C-alpha cells in the first residue's frame, strides 16, 4: 500500500511539464473499500473495555470481600470497587494504546466520576432530607400550628412550625428592609463617587465578608442585647442577619454596577443628563435583573443562617408576631432545637421543618434564575425574534389574503411588514 511520489526531474521541468505531482499508489484501490470514516471519538472497543472493567472490578471486589479480607459497609465496598476499576481499565487500555492515551482515559474517568459524585451527594442530601421529613410534611398542621401544646411524645398530627415560618419571614423582612436600601446606596457610592475614600470603604466591606456569621450574632448579642438592654427578639435576629448579609449584598451589587457599560452612561451624560438622572434612568434599569438576582441569593443565604439567630432570637414554642418583644424562633433554629431531642417524632419534625426551609430556598433560587436570565441582551434578542415572527406572520397573511380576494396588493403587504418590524 506504500505510495511512491514521483520526483520531478530537471528534464521534465525544462520541458515545461508541471513540477508538482500527486502521489499515486502503486495499487488500484477498489472504490467500495473507501468507506466513509467516522470522526466521532468513541469507538465500540472503548465502550466495551469500560463495561468490562466495571464488571471485572465488581466481580473482583466481591471475591475480595467475601473470600480474602472482609469489607464492612457499602461505602468501603464502593471505594474498593472504584480503585479496582481504575486499575483494570488502565490495564485494558494499555493493552492496545500508548501510555499517553492511558493517562488521558484515566483522567477523563476520574474527572467525570468526581463531578458525578458531587451531584450524587447533592441528590443524597436532598432526598435524604425529604425522605426523613415526608412523614411530618404530609400533615397540614406542620405549616399552621405551633408547638405550644405539643410535647415531644405527641404524634405528628399535632404541633407544627407555623410560628417558625412566620418568624423567619419577619426576620428576613427586617433584614431586607435595612440591607436593600443601604446596600444599594453604598454600592452606588462605591461605583459613582470614586476616590481614595470609596476605595477604603470597598476594602473594609471586602474584609467584612470574612466575618463568621456566629461572630455577627455575638456582636448583636453583646451590643444590642447586653449593652443597650433590649430583649432577645426578632428585631435582634434581623439585625444580626443584616450585619451578616450587608457585606455580601454590597459586594454583589458593586459587581453588578461595574458591569453597566460605560458607553451607556456616557451617552446619557452626553445628552446633557446629570449624574442623578443617569443613575436613575440608565444605571439602575440596566442593572435591575442583576440586582434582583443578588438580592434573592443574599436572601437565601440569610434565611438559611442558624448561628446569628441562635445567639440573638431566643427560643419559644409559641407564635410571636411582635418583632420587638419576646423571643421569636426561625426555621433553621427550630430544626436545630428539634433535632436535639431524642424522640423520633421530634426528629421527624426537624426534618419536616428542614424540608419547608429547603422549599423556601428553592422557590427563591428558581425565581432568581428566572429573573436573572432576563438580562438586557436577551430581552432585545427576544424582541427581535418576536418582531421577525410577527413580520413573517403578517407577511404570510398579506400574501394569503390577496390571493383569495385581490390579485395585486403587493406594496401594501410590504408596507405592513416593515411597519410591524419597526413597532
Amino acid at each position: 500500500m506504500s505510495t511512491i511520489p514521483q520526483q520531478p526531474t530537471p528534464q521534465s521541468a525544462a520541458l515545461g511539464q508541471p513540477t508538482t505531482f500527486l502521489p499515486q499508489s502503486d495499487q488500484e484501490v477498489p472504490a467500495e473499500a473507501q468507506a466513509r470514516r467516522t470522526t466521532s471519538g468513541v469507538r465500540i472497543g472503548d465502550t466495551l473495555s469500560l463495561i468490562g472493567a466495571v464488571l471485572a472490578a465488581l466481580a473482583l471486589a466481591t471475591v475480595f470481600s467475601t473470600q480474602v479480607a472482609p469489607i464492612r459497609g457499602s461505602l468501603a465496598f464502593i471505594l474498593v470497587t472504584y480503585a479496582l476499576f481504575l486499575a483494570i481499565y488502565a490495564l485494558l487500555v494499555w493493552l492496545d494504546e500508548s501510555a499517553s492515551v492511558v493517562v488521558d482515559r484515566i483522567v477523563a474517568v476520574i474527572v467525570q466520576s468526581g463531578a458525578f459524585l458531587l451531584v450524587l451527594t447533592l441528590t443524597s442530601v436532598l432526598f435524604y432530607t425529604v425522605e426523613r421529613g415526608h412523614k411530618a410534611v404530609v400533615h397540614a398542621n406542620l405549616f399552621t400550628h405551633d408547638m405550644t401544646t405539643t410535647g415531644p411524645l405527641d404524634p405528628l398530627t399535632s404541633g407544627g412550625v407555623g410560628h417558625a415560618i412566620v418568624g423567619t419571614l419577619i426576620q428576613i423582612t427586617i433584614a431586607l428592609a435595612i440591607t436593600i436600601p443601604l446596600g444599594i446606596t453604598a454600592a452606588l457610592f462605591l461605583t459613582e463617587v470614586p476616590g481614595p475614600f470609596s476605595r477604603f470603604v470597598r476594602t473594609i466591606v471586602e474584609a467584612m465578608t470574612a466575618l463568621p456569621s456566629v461572630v455577627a450574632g455575638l456582636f448583636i448579642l453583646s451590643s444590642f442585647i447586653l449593652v443597650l438592654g433590649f430583649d432577645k427578639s426578632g428585631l435582634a435576629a434581623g439585625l444580626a442577619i443584616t450585619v451578616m448579609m450587608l457585606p455580601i449584598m454590597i459586594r454583589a451589587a458593586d459587581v453588578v454596577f461595574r458591569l453597566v457599560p460605560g458607553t451607556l452612561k456616557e451617552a446619557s451624560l452626553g445628552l446633557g443628563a446629570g449624574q442623578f438622572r443617569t443613575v436613575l434612568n440608565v444605571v439602575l434599569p440596566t442593572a435591575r435583573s442583576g440586582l434582583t438576582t443578588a438580592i434573592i441569593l443574599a436572601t437565601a443565604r440569610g434565611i438559611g443562617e442558624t448561628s446569628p439567630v441562635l445567639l440573638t432570637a431566643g427560643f419559644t414554642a409559641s407564635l410571636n408576631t411582635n418583632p420587638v418583644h419576646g423571643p421569636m424562633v426561625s426555621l433553621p433554629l427550630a430544626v436545630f432545637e428539634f433535632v436535639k431531642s431524642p424522640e423520633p417524632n421530634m426528629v421527624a419534625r426537624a426534618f419536616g421543618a428542614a424540608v419547608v426551609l429547603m422549599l423556601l430556598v428553592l422557590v427563591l433560587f428558581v425565581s432568581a434564575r428566572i429573573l436573572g436570565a432576563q438580562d438586557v441582551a436577551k430581552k432585545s434578542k427576544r424582541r427581535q425574534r418576536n418582531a421577525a415572527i410577527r413580520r413573517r406572520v403578517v407577511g404570510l397573511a398579506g400574501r394569503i389574503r390577496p390571493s383569495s380576494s385581490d390579485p395585486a396588493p403587493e406594496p401594501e403587504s410590504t408596507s405592513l411588514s416593515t411597519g410591524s418590524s419597526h413597532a
Partner: protein
Amino acid sequence: MLHLVREVTDDAAIEGFIDQPRKIKLVRDLPDKIFRGVASAGGVTVLLIMLLVGTFLALKAAPALHQAGFKFFTTQAWNPDSKHFGVAAVLVGTILIALVAVVVAVPLSTCTALYITEYAPRRMKTVFIGVIDLMAAIPSIVYGLWGFFFLQAKLASVSAWIAQHFGWIPIFHVSGVNSHTAISSYTLFTSSTLIAGLVVGMMITPVITSIMREVFSQVPMGEREGALGLGATKAGVIRTVVLPFGRGGMIGGTMLGLGRALGETIAVYLIISPVFTIQPHILQSGAISVSSLIALQFAEANSFGLSALMAAGLTLFLMTLVINFAASSVVARSRSGASS
C-alpha cells in the same frame, strides 16, 4: 471660513494672547449634589457599621485578652470562670476541620470544574452550573442533618477500617483500637474531626467550584488549540494549558473556601462532641472549633465568659480576614485576573 479662523488666531497671537489650557469648572446641579450626598452618607453608614463591629469586638475582647495575656494562645482548656482558658486546642481543632474540608473539597471541585469546562456536553453544562449554585444555596443546617444522621453511620465502618490498617500513621491513630477490636464499638469513630470536615467540605465545594469554573472558562482558545495541534490529548491540554492558566484562581478559590470552612458553625456543632485538648487524631471521636465553641458556651457565659468568647471570635475573624485578603490578592495577580 478656514481663512477667517486663521486670521483671528493670528491677530490674537499678535496681541500677546498666550494659549493655555482652560480651567474646567464642574458645576453640579442640585439633584446631583443631593444624590452624591446621599450615596456618600450610605457609604459612611456602612463603613461605620463595619468599623463598629470590628472595634466593638476588639473592645469587648480586651478584658479577657488582658487577663490571659499570651497564655491565651497556649492554653488548651476553656474555663473562663476559673480564669484558665485559651484557644490552643480550639484553634487547632478549627484548622484541622477546615483542612479536612479543603482536602476533600479541592479535588472534587477541580474535577467538577474541569468536567463543566472541558468534558460536559452543552446541555449538561447548564445543568451542572445550576446544581452547583443550588448546592451553595442549601442552608448549612440541612447539611448538618445529613452529616449527623446519614453520613456518620455510613462512614463509621470506613473510619474503623482505616484506623485498623493505617493506625500507625499518627493522624489516623485511634486510641483503644487494635487489630482485634470488635468494630461494633462504632462510638469510637462518630463525632470525629473527619466527619465534621467532610460535611464542611461538601458545603465549601460549590464556592470553590464556581471560582475554578470561572477561571478555567477563560483559558484562551488559541492555547488550547495550539496544544491540540501539537498532538496533545485532552488530559495533556488540561495538564499543560488549563491548570497552569488557572493556577491563581485555583489557589484563590481554595483559600476563599478555607475561609468559609473556618467560620462554619451549625453543621460542626451538630456533629462534634466537644473536647478541650489538642486532638490530632482525625478519626477519633471528639473535636472542637471556635465557632461551635461560641454557639456552645454563649448561653451560660457571664460577662467575662462572653469577653473570652469575643476574644476567640476575634482570633477567628482575624484568621479568616488574612486568608481572604491573601486569596483575593492571589486571584488578582494571577494571569486569569480578578474574575471573582
